């Protein structure tokens, strides 16, 4: 060719420079935004909240984000389970838990300047019941208000909430963000607008902006002076501003914690926890209250109707192994139908100890003999059933392996949320695989009461049914606890539920961050948090 090599080299060099310049041009620029002087907390969360009105969703992230902008009538001590005053300075219930009277503090205002009065609370509860009526939203808050008959206003600061039927869950529910109070103006908005634009609350932070799938930001409320006695200080929150960044990739959350881009990261993967703890970051872990991740049998299924099969499942699942393999390293295997952090929990560990020999013996005694392929059979019926679930597929597979050793064939139907609830709706499942998160022991009622609108389990047990409805109508703590003890014993002993793993909320922060505290629902308050 005619072009001299020299010229070619010059051209090549020239374009190499251009290419470098292009890349450099892309990468030039300032660093990531630094820490604000007085404190912007950047909190990386795993999932888009999808709705920032705390009364409507059940998405964990939506609940803890919403928690920062609303206050509740009462608060619950996460240690003792005791209900204490918050926006209501006094509260009481009648004996059968059908009416609750509250007296509000008189100094509370919403961030739009309006005052908190009995009328506002009434508007809140009425709006929740209305939103929940068609089943499209506010279902959790709606459950806490189940049987709601109305709010009777006594005076500006005093009101009475009445129910058609006993509702022991209400007071506990009143401590959650799901029944957190929003302003009169907010209650008049459409549910969609509340989801998207946020709500006006009385909380220590005020929504600034919500960019779906990206970020929620909130600023400190000046003049906040009604923190619950369970908080670490009084007056304004310490942080100036909080930015919740939606970061779905776990590795990016962890890397961002290590690089300092995030102050706190939520939903730290269990597998990363020991390493992150070793590097000196602070770890916060708490088991979700309610019912642990469990297998829930349908007792209309001929195989699962056999008590021997359920006994084998009760003692034949190696929960320690599952916890060690897939659980949070600092966590414990579940020991009851309620998770260990739930008020009303009583250990049934004795009934649930892993004993594969006993499981096999129970099956053999009942006539389930091992077939040619290792799966047991009885009168031509194979010992097989299908578990329906929509998360934690690995855990289902691990259980499947464990049960196979006992001669039990558990098929897996891994579906989506719609398929899962469809199976509940038409009672077509053999076994459900899921957890049920609720603040209190009423999770048992939600799961097992056949009259409850949401009931999951298909069980025909009049005794259990009676105990569950009686506990909901019992205001005496000790008497209620006795009933709950009995309910948990029956559920475990009779094999109505096979707990598998306690689900832990695990978050991590920079070492100098202080003041992070879980509430009784394993959500948290950032009011006391300081960047240090």
């Amino acid at each position, binding site marked *: 060719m005619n072009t001299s090599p020299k*010229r*070619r*080299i010059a*051209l*090549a060099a020239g*374009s*190499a420079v*251009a*290419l470098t310049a292009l890349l450099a041009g892309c*990468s030039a*620029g*300032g660093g*990531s*935004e630094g820490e604000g002087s007085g404190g912007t907390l950047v909190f*990386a969360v795993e999932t888009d909240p*999808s*709705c920032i009105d705390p009364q*409507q*969703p*059940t998405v964990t992230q939506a609940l803890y984000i919403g928690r920062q902008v609303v206050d509740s009538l009462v608060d619950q001590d996460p240690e003792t389970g005791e209900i204490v005053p918050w926006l209501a300075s006094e509260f009481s219930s009648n004996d059968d838990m059908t009416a609750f009277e509250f007296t509000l503090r008189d100094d509370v205002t919403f961030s739009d300047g309006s005052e908190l009065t009995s009328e506002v609370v009434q508007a809140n509860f009425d709006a929740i019941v209305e939103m929940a009526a*068609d*089943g*499209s*939203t506010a*279902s959790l808050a709606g*459950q806490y208000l189940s049987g709601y008959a109305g709010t009777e206003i006594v005076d500006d600061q005093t009101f009475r909430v009445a129910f058609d039927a006993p509702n022991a869950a209400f007071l506990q529910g009143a401590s959650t963000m799901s029944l957190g109070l929003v302003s009169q103006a907010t209650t008049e908005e459409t*549910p*969609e607008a509340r*989801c*998207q634009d946020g709500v006006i609350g009385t909380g220590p932070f005020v929504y600034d902006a919500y*960019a779906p*799938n*990206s*970020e929620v930001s909130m600023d400190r409320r000046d003049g906040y002076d009604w923190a619950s006695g369970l908080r670490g200080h009084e007056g304004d929150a310490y942080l100036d501003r909080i930015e919740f*960044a*939606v*970061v*779905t*990739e776990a*590795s*990016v959350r962890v*890397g*961002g914690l*290590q*690089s300092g*881009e995030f102050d706190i990261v939520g939903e730290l993967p269990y597998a990363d926890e020991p390493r992150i703890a070793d590097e000196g970051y602070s770890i916060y872990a708490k088991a979700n209250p309610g019912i642990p991740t469990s297998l829930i049998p349908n007792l209309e299924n001929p195989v699962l109707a056999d008590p021997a099969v359920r006994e084998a499942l009760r003692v034949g699942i190696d929960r320690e192994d599952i916890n060690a393999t897939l659980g949070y390293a600092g966590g414990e295997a579940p020991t009851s139908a309620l998770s260990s952090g739930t008020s009303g929990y009583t250990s049934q560990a004795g009934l649930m100890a892993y004993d594969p020999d006993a499981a096999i013996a129970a099956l053999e005694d009942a006539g389930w003999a091992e077939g040619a392929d290792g799966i047991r059979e009885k009168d031509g019926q194979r010992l097989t059933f299908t578990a329906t679930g929509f998360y934690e597929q690995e855990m289902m597979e691990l259980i499947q392996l464990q049960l196979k050793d006992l001669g039990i064939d558990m098929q897996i139907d891994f579906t*989506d*949320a*719609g*398929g*899962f*609830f*469809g199976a509940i*709706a038409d009672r077509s499942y053999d076994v459900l695989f*899921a*957890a*049920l*998160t609720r603040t209190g022991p009423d999770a048992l009622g939600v799961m097992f009461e056949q009259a409850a*609108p*949401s009931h999951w389990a298909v069980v025909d047990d009049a005794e259990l049914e009676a105990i569950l409805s009686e506990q909901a109508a019992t205001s005496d703590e000790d008497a209620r606890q006795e009933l709950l003890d009995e309910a948990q014993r029956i559920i475990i002993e009779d094999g109505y539920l096979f707990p598998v793993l306690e689900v832990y909320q695990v978050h991590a922060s920079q070492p100098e961050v202080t003041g992070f505290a879980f509430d009784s629902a394993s959500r948290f308050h950032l009011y006391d948090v300081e960047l240090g």
Partner: protein
Amino acid sequence: MPGAGTSPSRTALAAVRAVAPRILQFVFVVWATYTVTFLLIRILPGDPVLAALAVQSGDATTVDPEQLAALREEAGLAGSVLSQYLAQLGGLLTGDLGTSLATGRPVTQMISDVVPGSLAVAGLALVVGVTMSLLVGFLAYVSPWRWLRDLLVQLPPLGVAVPAFVTGLVLISVFSFTLGWFPASGARSPLSVVLPAVTLAFPVGAIFFQVFSAAIREAEGSAYVFTADVKGLSRLAIFGRHILRNAMLPSVTSIGLLVGFLAGGTAVVETVFSRDGIGRIVVAAVQARDVNVIQGVIIVVAVVYALAALLVDLSYPLLDPRLRTRGRVRPAPVVAGGLGAVAAPGEAPSGSAPSAGEEAPR
């Protein structure tokens, strides 16, 4: 559209004749996409209303049959398939894509909210990708050493071979976590668009490069380049005036396809970089089986795709004078490579086929 004047000029008529079939084609593509999507979504098992509800309501999802029936009605999912089809088609014609089952927001609004963000990433990715491959192509052409040339030509396929989430995570760990130049996530700073765009630029550039380098090779071997070479034109001039221009046509076609790829292909990048966007909406919608959103996004992507194809089609005559309609005469575009040799090197080498033997642009 060339407005027909008072006296219908011949050229205007010809232009309409040339453009009208393309527009018909565009409408057909969008309609066919809607129909296929509609049917596919109906074939899926399960109840979309329940699936969407479960996203927001989680373990408190209602299973009450009456409530579900009422919600289905509200969502426009009740009634016969044909009436649903026609109702939604009517909505589509008026620009109403319905309401998201999971969020209750209008789909049109959900999509228009995220378009700027996606557009910024996709647009920058296209620019960076195409520029990179032009540069690599040029470097390979002028490279004095064969090994360097071979190496450069082998590089771009890597861009397709390495999955976007790997590229993205590597870029994040280098440029965000180690160097701290760019944010790793979100859209909180304007710089946040860079890493996702660069991540996407690799596959985009690679696909473009495949077409572009083939076109360069083709042109390089042609007689008119040989002639230009013999006449003593510089490599730079040959590349700029002869090779680049002839490589344009197939390359522009591939850009049309890339726009379609970018319109729907941002999901992984948006997930890795935690940005809101079209792809993110689709992922969430599929998880929630949010049928109206899935359908809305697919239609929007189809429109973008078809529009890009339309523009590419319409741009051919601008790029290649042989494709311009002179009156009603359309010269046959296939020209033997030998004819190109006749083209004077100084002029636009328009006499040569974009790539001899290749299918002629329609």
